[in-house]
C-alpha cells in the first residue's frame, strides 16, 4: 500500500541555509506522527514544504503516490491537506464563526456559504469555541487563537491534518483537554502530524516520533525508542528533562 504522504529526499534552502536537508519520511494513513526537534530545526519548514507555502528546492512530495511538490497551496488544501500556523493567522476582523466557515467553504467541504456556516457551528462546539463564535478573532488570547487555527483546519474536512504547536501556551490541565480532542479527531480517521515542544503531548498522543536536527532527520521510531536516544537527549531534551521523562514514563499512552 502506498503511504498517505511521502517525502522523498526533500530539501528546502533559504539562501545559504538548508532549513530542510534531504528528508525522506512517510506518513501512513491513520497514524499520529509526532515531530520534534530543537528550535530552528526545520519543523515548521517541513509543513510549509508539504503545503506548498515554500515549495521544496529539491526532492518530491507525494500524496498517495501523486506528486504535489509544485502545486499551489490552495490546490493542496483542496486535496484534503490542512494545517495550522505556529504564528497564528486568523482573519482578524472577521468573527470566529466566519473564520471557520472560510475553511469549510473554500476547501470544498461545504457546497454553499450557508452550509459552511452550519458546519462551522459544529466544529466550534467540538473545539470549545462556541461561546465566542461571534467575537472578532483579533480579540482572542493567544491560546484561543491557536484553538481557532485547529477549528479552521478541521472545517476543511481534511484527510491529513498538520498541527504546529497548537498547544503552546496551555497549562498542563488545559493540555489534557486538548489531547482528548486530538485523539477524537484521529478516531474520525484523520491522519495527524503534531509538532510540539510539550513532551506531555508528544509522548502521550504520538504513535510514532520523528526528530529533526539542523534540517535532517536524526531519529524515527516509537516514542519510547526515540526519547531514549542519546543523540536526541543531547540535541533536544537536555538531561533534566530526560530524567523527568524517565520518571513519568509509565504514564505513556494513558
Amino acid at each position, binding site marked *: 500500500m502506498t503511504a498517505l504522504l511521502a517525502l522523498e529526499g526533500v530539501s528546502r534552502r533559504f539562501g545559504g541555509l538548508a532549513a530542510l536537508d534531504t528528508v525522506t519520511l512517510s506518513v501512513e494513513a491513520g497514524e499520529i506522527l509526532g515531530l520534534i526537534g530543537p528550535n530552528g530545526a526545520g519543523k515548521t519548514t517541513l509543513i510549509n514544504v508539504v503545503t506548498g507555502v515554500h515549495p521544496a528546492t529539491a526532492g518530491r512530495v507525494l500524496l498517495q503516490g501523486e506528486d504535489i511538490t509544485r502545486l499551489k497551496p490552495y490546490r493542496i488544501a483542496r486535496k484534503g491537506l490542512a494545517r495550522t500556523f505556529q504564528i497564528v493567522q486568523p482573519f482578524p476582523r472577521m468573527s470566529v464563526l466566519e473564520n471557520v466557515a472560510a475553511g469549510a467553504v473554500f476547501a470544498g467541504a461545504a457546497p454553499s456559504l450557508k452550509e459552511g456556516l452550519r458546519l462551522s457551528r459544529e466544529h466550534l462546539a467540538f473545539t470549545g469555541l462556541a461561546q465566542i463564535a461571534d467575537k472578532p478573532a483579533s480579540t482572542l488570547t493567544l491560546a484561543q487563537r491557536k484553538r481557532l487555527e485547529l477549528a479552521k483546519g478541521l472545517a476543511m474536512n481534511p484527510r491529513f491534518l498538520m498541527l504546529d504547536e497548537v498547544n503552546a*501556551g496551555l*497549562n498542563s490541565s*488545559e*493540555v489534557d483537554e486538548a489531547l482528548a480532542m486530538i485523539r477524537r479527531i484521529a478516531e474520525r480517521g484523520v491522519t495527524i502530524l503534531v509538532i510540539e515542544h*510539550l513532551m506531555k503531548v508528544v509522548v502521550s498522543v504520538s504513535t510514532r516520533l520523528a526528530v529533526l536536527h539542523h534540517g535532517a532527520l536524526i531519529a524515527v521510531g516509537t516514542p519510547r525508542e526515540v526519547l531514549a536516544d542519546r543523540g536526541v537527549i543531547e540535541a533536544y*531534551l537536555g538531561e*533534566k*528533562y530526560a530524567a523527568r521523562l524517565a520518571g*513519568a514514563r509509565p504514564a505513556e499512552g494513558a
Partner: protein
Amino acid sequence: MDAPKLSVTQLQAGYGDVQVLWDVTLDVKPGEMVCIVGSNGAGKTTLMRAISALVPVSAGRIAVDGADLTGATPARMVAAGVAHVPEGRRLFGAMSVRDNLLMGAYLRPDKAGIAEDLEKVYALFPRLAERQKQDAGTLSGGEQQMCAVGRGLMARPSLLMIDELSLGLAPRMVDLLADGLRRVNAEGVAVLLVEQDVMNALELADRAFVLDRGRVTLSGPAAALADDPAIREAYMGGLAG
C-alpha cells in the same frame, strides 16, 4: 519594612468596552521572584501590559518603590526601573543582537555602565556573544528568548517582568533560561514571571499569585501553592509533563 518594589492595588483595565482585570492587587518585594499563574485568557498578559502602561488603566493604582505611577508612559516605567520582556519576544528583527541589547539600555546615559552590563549579559548567555553581529530575526526561538531577556536586563532594572518564559522553546532551552534567571535574581533583581508550565514556575518562584478570569483568587509562597491539590488539579492536570 521597605516599600514593595511594585505594588498594584485594585487595578481595573481592559480593551475598549471589554474589561479584563477586576480589582487586581499584587506586590513584588525587592529582590523577590514572583510568578503569576492562570489559565489562558485569565488576563496575565493584560496585567503586565497595564503595569507597563501599554494598556490604559481605568481604576486602581500602580506604584513602584512607593511612588504612584498610575497612568504614566511606558518610558516612565522603564525609567523607574521596570523592564518588560513581552509575550512573543518582540525583538527588533532586522537589527543586530548587539543593537537589540543596546536598545534595552536606551534610557541610560552611563556609557561605561552600559558596556559593563553588555559584558554581563554575554557572560550570562555566551551564545549571544557568539551571535552579536547576527540579525535578531534570524536567531532560533530559544536564542531569541535569551536575547529578549538580555535586552530586559540591559535596562539595569530593579524589576524584570517576563511574559511566557518558555513558550515554544525546546526543553533543553527552558533549562538554560531558568538557570540564567536564577542567577539574575540572585544578584538582587526582582522578577515577576508569567509561565504556563506551572510546575516549573512554582519551582523557580518565591511567591505566586493565581489569576482567574481577571481576579486574584489565591496567593502565597510558591512551595505551598505547588502542594495545593486544587492548584494541582486546575493547572497541572494531575501529572507534570
